[in-house]
């Protein structure tokens, strides 16, 4: 597992984090999100209890942990979809306690949902265009005069088109959201989140239910995000994916951060293995190492690896070709952080 990422060149995020000590709550050189003493319980159950956590700007951080560890709840708390009992957190300098979800998104922190929320009766293109921020035509009076928003709409459509091409969904632009398959919805939701041009994306199991071939190209997209000045936090159960993609891994169990560090260090961590296998914990059933339904278990991966790797390679090949376009067009995306600030 661990030796896989030795083959790839270290990313900027990995380099920045190279000297950071792999202990829970460790400070990062340039954190974009800082969480302090955030606690949320449901009745008697403490779903999230994070003492201190920092996420490095421009890095890809994975959040892993057994089912019910509190990952989704943590996402909900960070993005204003749920309120913690106590605690503070800052994103890019903004204090986000008691900030409503839509404002969090406007500050540049955009999340996707574990249970996909494709807008069923809107077309794929409309789904995408909805993501764009600062639309003049979204104000009620201005919307009555097409002249005010037509030009901007055209720009947005162009950008959406590019993203759809990148995600290989351009042929589905007129399909309704509800007509897509589960995996396609995941793709759409991720692409739509990128339309917001966020400085940080939080992806809740973006690969779940996506076929392995597509997973590869999706992974390439995620890996590519830091080059568009985006920070990524994502939840994933498939360890191979986690090892492949992340600069940093945070492990949650029973609401707490029990470990963090570079992928290799975390994979070797005793406590993490315990948490997954259930040693030393009373309730074993809760901590079965499920890489999530649909995604192959690590052992199984080895067996199906050759064909999927081939497909992946092909995907990668034309994925790479597709990527050239948006990479050149990265200009506007690069301007974005400045434009937002």
């Amino acid at each position: 597992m661990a030796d896989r990422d030795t083959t790839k060149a270290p990313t900027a995020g990995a380099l920045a984090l190279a000297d950071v000590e792999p202990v829970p709550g460790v400070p990062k050189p340039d954190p974009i999100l800082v969480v302090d003493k955030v606690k949320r319980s449901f009745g008697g159950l403490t779903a999230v209890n994070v003492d201190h956590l920092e996420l490095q700007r421009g890095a890809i951080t994975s959040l892993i942990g057994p089912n019910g560890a509190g990952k989704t709840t943590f996402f909900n708390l960070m993005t204003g979809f749920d309120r913690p009992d106590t605690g503070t957190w800052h994103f890019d300098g903004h204090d986000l306690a008691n900030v409503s979800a839509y404002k969090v998104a406007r500050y540049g922190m955009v999340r996707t949902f574990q249970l996909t929320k494709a807008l069923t009766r809107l077309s794929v293109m409309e789904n995408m265009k909805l993501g764009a921020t600062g639309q003049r035509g979204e104000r009620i009076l201005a919307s009555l005069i097409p002249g005010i928003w037509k030009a901007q709409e055209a720009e947005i459509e162009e950008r959406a088109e590019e993203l759809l091409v990148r995600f290989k969904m351009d042929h589905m632009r007129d399909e309704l959201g509800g007509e897509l398959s589960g995996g396609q919805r995941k793709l759409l939701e991720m692409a739509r989140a990128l339309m917001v041009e966020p400085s940080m994306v939080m992806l809740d199991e973006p690969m779940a239910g996506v076929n392995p071939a597509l997973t590869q190209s999706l992974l390439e997209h995620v890996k590519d995000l830091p080059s568009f000045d985006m920070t990524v936090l994502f939840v994933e159960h498939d360890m191979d994916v986690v090892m492949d993609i992340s600069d940093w891994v945070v492990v949650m169990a029973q609401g707490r951060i029990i470990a963090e560090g570079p992928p290799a260090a975390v994979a070797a961590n005793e406590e993490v293995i315990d948490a997954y296998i259930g040693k030393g914990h009373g309730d074993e059933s809760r901590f079965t190492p499920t890489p999530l339904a649909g995604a192959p278990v690590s052992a199984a991966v080895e067996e199906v690896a050759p064909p999927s790797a081939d497909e992946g390679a092909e995907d990668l090949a034309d994925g790479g070709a597709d990527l050239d376009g948006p990479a050149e067009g990265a200009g506007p995306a690069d301007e974005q952080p400045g434009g937002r600030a």
Partner: protein
Amino acid sequence: MAASLRVLTSIATLLLATLAMLASLVAPAAAASDPAPTLLAQEGGEQVRGTLNDGEGDPLEGVQLSVTTPDGEAVGDATSGDDGTWAVDLPGPGDYVVTLDTSTLPDGVELRDPERDTLEVSVNTGQQRTLLFPFGEGGQVSSLGQRLTTAAFSGVQFGLIIAIAAIGLSLIFGTTGLVNFAHGELVTFGAIVAWFLNAPSGTGLGVQLIIAGAIAVVITALLGGGIELGLWRPLRRRRTGLIQMLVITIGLSLALRFGMQIVFGGSSRPYFDYTIQQRISIGWLAITPRDLIVSLIAAATLVGVATMLQRTRIGKAMRAVSDNRDLAESSGIDVQRVVLFVWVMGAGLAGFGGVLNGVVENVNYLLGFRLLLLMFAAVILGGLGTAYGAMFGAIVVGLVTEISTVFFSTELKFVWALFVLIIILLVRPQGLLGRKERIG
């Protein structure tokens, strides 16, 4: 397509059967008030009436009364008959002034309180208000304490009736997620079926009221089961959305309500047993034995339902499905069967609530619809989907409704209950006893 046809035939037969069931019991009753020139059918049947007696039990005949609006516009006159009764039909709900012409009283008979020859009354929609002109000696003016006690008693009684009717509403929501806007019509249905069974032969079957009520409850329960099997189950199988089904309950409620109006007519009518009763006084409380017994029966029913939910297998299953449908399903509970049972039981209880309400007040095709919003208030107050919440909420709603009449105009008594509803939705949408919903 076959599925559609099945639903279509089910709906059609269901509605026809319902109407036929009612129609077969009786020839079309008194014609409803003529529809207003436009679409706006007014509710009808408002009346003031009363029985005059000289204080020693003898009726007063030939006494003239007149009814006007508060502005003095004449509405109607009446002369008491040989049994002392009089009645004036009103153009609609509202405030009226009823004046008794003392010069037409027989010699030697005087009003107990000479000042009270004029009464100001407000009449609710569909209400037939009975007025009292006391003659002769005796009588005491009721104190605030007495009025409060009486109002509190009516409140509890009303609350118990709402609770019985609303349990089904809450359980149906809990087990299927459906907000049943046709629940009020199940209440009315029970009351009307009982009326036709109870009415003397000619109009009805002349069955004694208690037996009539029991039969009506069974028939309403069957109707509930029929609606579930014939309508909701096929619709759920076709994966019809909840909002869509909610709008269907609206359609169903219109069809049933006005179907019943066709059969029953627009007026309010009492049952034929237990109508005339002397009030008995217990401390500050003056009530008729009938009201007392209705309350006791209602309370016993609620205890019975609670025990059933707590102890029996099906009761536990109902609560389990209500609590968490998926979990219940995966732990081997036959959810479809439980839902059917909820419909049968819920409808039966609704019908029973209707009969009780009909005993206390009168039977009218709008009886259940008037209770519907109060049932919603009760159910939301207690927490949607919980049976005990509905019971608790209903008592609160009943008390608020009745006690408000001690201090404020009776016309506004439902307004307070609905206010409570909106306030609760504002501060604690999960209800006072309910749990917070899971987010995303």
